[in-house]
């Protein structure tokens, strides 16, 4: 089971921009490398990631082989009401992951 981490500020002001930070554990194997025996290492990457808040997709990304292992992403958003921020991702072998954080809007 690969881990994910998400961070939002403890509390944000209504209508004010805040930062969401995401860290996903994944080897992000490019498919271009070879092992010690000369065999090519198959591609193994997270290819889709999306962040939903109050039922709306607020951020999404399609990742490629150029991303480093354990990709880190951050983006800014504006919230009108408190709710759950949920990040979901899937890799090219069908595995999925999900992390959530509660956003407290004052």
């Amino acid at each position: 089971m690969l881990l994910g981490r998400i961070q939002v500020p403890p509390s944000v002001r209504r209508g004010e921009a805040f930062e969401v930070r995401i860290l996903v554990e994944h080897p992000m194997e490019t498919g271009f490398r070879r092992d010690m025996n000369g065999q090519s290492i198959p591609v193994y990457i997270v290819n889709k990631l999306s962040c939903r808040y109050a039922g709306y997709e607020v951020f999404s990304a399609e990742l490629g082989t150029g991303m480093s292992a354990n990709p880190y992403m951050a983006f800014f958003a504006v919230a009108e009401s408190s709710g759950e921020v949920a990040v979901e991702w899937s890799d090219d072998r069908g595995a999925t992951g999900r992390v959530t954080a509660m956003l407290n809007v004052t």
Partner: protein
Amino acid sequence: MSLSRVLRSAFLVPLVVTAQTPQPLKSGIEFQSADVRALQADAFGNPGMLWVERGAALWNAPRGERNISCASCHGDATASMKGVAARYPAFLASLGRVANVEQRINACVVDNQKAVALPYESPELLALTAFRQSRGQPIAARADGAAAALLEEGARIYHRRQGQLNLACTSCHDASWGRTLLNEKVSQGHPADWPAYRFEWQALGSLERRLRACYFGVRAELPPYGSPDLLALQVYLAQRAAGLVSDPPGVRR
């Protein structure tokens, strides 16, 4: 004396190199660029924290024949494990030998949990060593008991030339620290902040993996994980870095 022998003696290099131990002590992170230093200090962005998080889960996960977790005996790690790892490698009377953190964890896994030892560099062992609650603790290993002999052996290895490049650890880390090697600053070679996330590895790695990378760098034969040579070297390095603040998981290029 034949000409060849004269030539050979003229170019004979001493087998043991002596250089001053660095003063003041500087952790490896001080030789990294500002962005790497910022990443290590960032409790969220530091990729090593993924292993710490996994370690926290493993701490409470029962395993082995006796189906007990680390927490079953040691309780809350934030209290029971605070600063413990900074005292390793150490001589353990209960085991009758010197052990580093990895070996100490595995001794507990095998003897108390009755489980199979965790392999070196496995995600589980790395996670448990990373989750060791020794952030910001000074290195304070005691070289007593059987560790005293290992300390001497470690110092000997540290000052011994080896490999095709014929370099000793001290050639770089005592004599040339702070200078540039390729595009890197040569560090003082302290074990602080390990296990660390190394960009070159794209993963967290143990101190032994880092030491093996140095052996590879001087084109020397790599000692296997858990070998007496690596343990002796770790005992010496811990004494050499005594008092230096360790802040694992580190981040290195």
